[in-house]
């Protein structure tokens, strides 16, 4: 049966089209002037520019990390353009009606209509196209509840006190190479602020789209949940099929103040490259959240795209009784490489964390779980449970587990388990004997393998994630 599964590996990337839109793209290369130019494009205040320049100077002296279990040619940072925006966005359209119909069409093709009447009820969307946000829906309705949901470039102008207070507090400028780069050149992304005691009336989501060639995308997201508030946020990512690799280096910061809860879900479907491993996105992302007392941050990710992924959504459990969760499905096929996992830093008393990571490797891909669980001396009564499972489809791929577990508190309990398995001949035969064809059988088994993670996704996205997995595995069975 394994031969059967191995055959016909090849998949269809449905978001691979290119939008023909007139864009203004900065020439490739990075220096102080480029940083100044980006800042000027956005008409940023002086403090923002200073922050960027400081980050740029730190970045210049940093080295690219090499510890991840991934291999790719060295990135030439001088060959990348750091800013690209559709020309039609230069005048900042006031409403959806003024947005270039071609851009709206792009999102429609991706299944994300931006007209409020058509969109899934109860989901507000911020659409980011290359370096700019093109539209944010349901803003009026959110404002009624006091929720701020806008492009971060706009928040710099309209809510400077909030941005100044929180930007760079979770992921410091010098955190790592890609985070520092992002601080210097970040273009756009979403800003979310949920006031005290407010339960955000709808799901918030951002769809990131890379369109322009030879351009890096450096988005930045900041979510602040005030005391006792609650928000569920989802991001989706796609890019056209291009032969050359493109860099995506995002930073996401979450702040959950006392008793607040943030649920952050990602369906990452950047272009993974073709069957020969040509092209695809380098997805080097820093995501981290801080939990204050009794707060909870839950990361759920379904990763099917990108040529190379380097991503560890993490929780700093600073406040007592705070909770961190990480649910992940990472599927790699063809020549994809994923090195992903999480960090749970337990600082407060009775903090709890749960990590469920499912890796599925097919084709010639490599999938690694890399995680850190740290129990600090103060983490009295803290608990962690980690379960990492790998499923291998075919004998040319690899599945790896690198968990770092550190404890300095005897009352803390850490449990880590990892297993690896394959879609067994017996399972396939049982399904076939009951009349189920092999392709459907593999997809059922893989979905079953991921169930614990899918149940954490908001309903409509769970369905989407299941379908995405099917597409990504398409043809992995003969």
């Amino acid at each position, binding site marked *: *049966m394994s031969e059967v599964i191995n055959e016909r590996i090849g998949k269809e990337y449905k978001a691979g089209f290119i939008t023909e839109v007139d864009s203004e793209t900065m020439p490739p290369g990075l220096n102080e002037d480029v940083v100044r130019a980006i800042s000027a494009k956005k008409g940023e205040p002086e403090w923002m520019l200073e922050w960027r320049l400081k980050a740029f100077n730190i970045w210049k002296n940093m080295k690219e990390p090499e510890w991840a279990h991934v291999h790719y040619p060295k990135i030439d940072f001088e060959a990348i353009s750091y800013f690209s925006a559709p020309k039609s966005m230069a005048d900042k359209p006031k409403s959806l009606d003024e947005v270039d119909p071609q851009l709206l069409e792009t999102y429609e093709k991706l299944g994300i209509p931006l007209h409020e009447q058509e969109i899934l009820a109860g989901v507000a969307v911020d659409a980011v196209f290359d370096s700019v946000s093109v539209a944010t829906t349901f803003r009026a309705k959110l404002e009624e509840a006091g929720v701020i949901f806008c492009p971060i470039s706009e928040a710099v102008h309209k809510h400077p006190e909030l941005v100044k207070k929180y930007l760079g507090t979770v992921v410091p400028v010098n955190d790592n190479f890609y985070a520092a780069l992002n601080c210097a050149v970040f273009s756009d992304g979403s800003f979310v602020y949920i006031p005290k005691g407010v339960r955000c009336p709808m799901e918030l989501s951002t769809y990131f789209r890379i369109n322009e060639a030879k351009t890096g995308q450096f988005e930045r997201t900041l979510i602040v949940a005030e005391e006792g508030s609650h928000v569920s946020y989802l991001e989706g990512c796609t890019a056209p099929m291009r032969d050359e690799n493109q860099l995506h280096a995002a930073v996401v910061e979450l702040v959950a103040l006392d008793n607040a809860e943030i649920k952050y879900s990602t369906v990452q479907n950047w272009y993974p490259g073709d069957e020969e491993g040509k092209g695809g996105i380098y997805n080097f992302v820093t995501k981290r959240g801080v939990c204050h007392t009794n707060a909870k941050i839950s990361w759920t990710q379904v990763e099917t795209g990108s040529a190379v992924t380097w991503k560890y959504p993490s929780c700093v459990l600073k406040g007592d009784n705070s909770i961190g969760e990480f649910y992940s499905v990472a599927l790699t096929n063809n020549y994809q490489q994923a090195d992903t996992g999480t960090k749970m830093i337990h600082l407060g008393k009775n903090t709890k964390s749960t990590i469920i990571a499912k890796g599925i490797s097919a084709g010639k891909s490599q999938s690694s779980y890399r995680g850190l669980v740290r129990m600090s001396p103060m983490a009295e009564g803290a608990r962690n449970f980690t379960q990492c499972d790998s499923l291998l489809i075919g004998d040319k791929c690899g599945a790896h587990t690198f968990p770092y577990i550190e404890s300095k508190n005897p009352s803390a309990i850490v449990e880590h388990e990892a297993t690896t398995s394959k879609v*067994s*001949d*017996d*399972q396939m*035969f*049982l*399904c*076939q*004997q*009951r*009349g*189920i*064809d*092999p392709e*459907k059988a593999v997809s*059922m*088994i893989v*979905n*079953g*393998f*991921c*169930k*614990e993670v899918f149940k954490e996704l908001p309903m409509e996205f769970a369905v989407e994630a299941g379908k995405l997995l099917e597409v990504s595995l398409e043809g992995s069975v003969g």
Partner: protein
Amino acid sequence: MLNIKNLHAAVEDKTILKGLNLEIKPGEVHAIMGPNGAGKSTLGNVLAGREGYERTNGEVLFNEKDIFEMDPEERAAEGMFLAFQYPVEIPGVSNLEFLKASLDAIRKYNNQPELDAVSFMKMARETCKAVNLDQSFLKRGVNEGFSGGEKKRNEIMQMMLLQPKLCILDETDSGLDIDALQVVAKGVNDLRDSNRSFVVVTHYQRLLDYIVPDYVHVLADGKIVKSGGKELAHELEDKGYGWLDNNEVA
């Protein structure tokens, strides 16, 4: 319904079945007994099309069709059901989901409309009850963490739900206590009718007290060496398989 002629089959290049002949007509129950290593389980697996079980000679017609021209799922859709000796666990895939996928596929093959969710649920609950399985089993992963008896009852439940034409029970009685055995037997007996046939593969006569066969065949060294009525089973029980070596086979 099923016509096996001179069937030879090998597992990993080792010939296990060496010229087996058997004809099963609609409504008949055939018991196949024999010592360990006689090829009993091989028969069920070859018929259902398990990978690694290779037909090396002979032919098998099921509903007048050559089964070796069909994939396992096609054989299933044609109405062949194998109750596994060792039911397989599929973590995370619920019984319900599995049963629905199976039933849908078989109905589709036979040009029947998909069953709507409500009727399906009703049917699933009823069959669950019929084999004394709690309804919570429907939501659990396929055989995941089931006890031996629960797994076997789950096989019978699937059989009842899918209503196959030919049911092959591969040592379904092994490892069952008497209560579970009765549940399994009742499930089988309830399904017996003039159009449905059974092949009951077993090592022990005990099961045949509950599922009374029309014919009993003794399989030894890859061939049927003796056939008879239900009384043959008792004879075997009294005298043991060694009796055959001394009389018939030698």
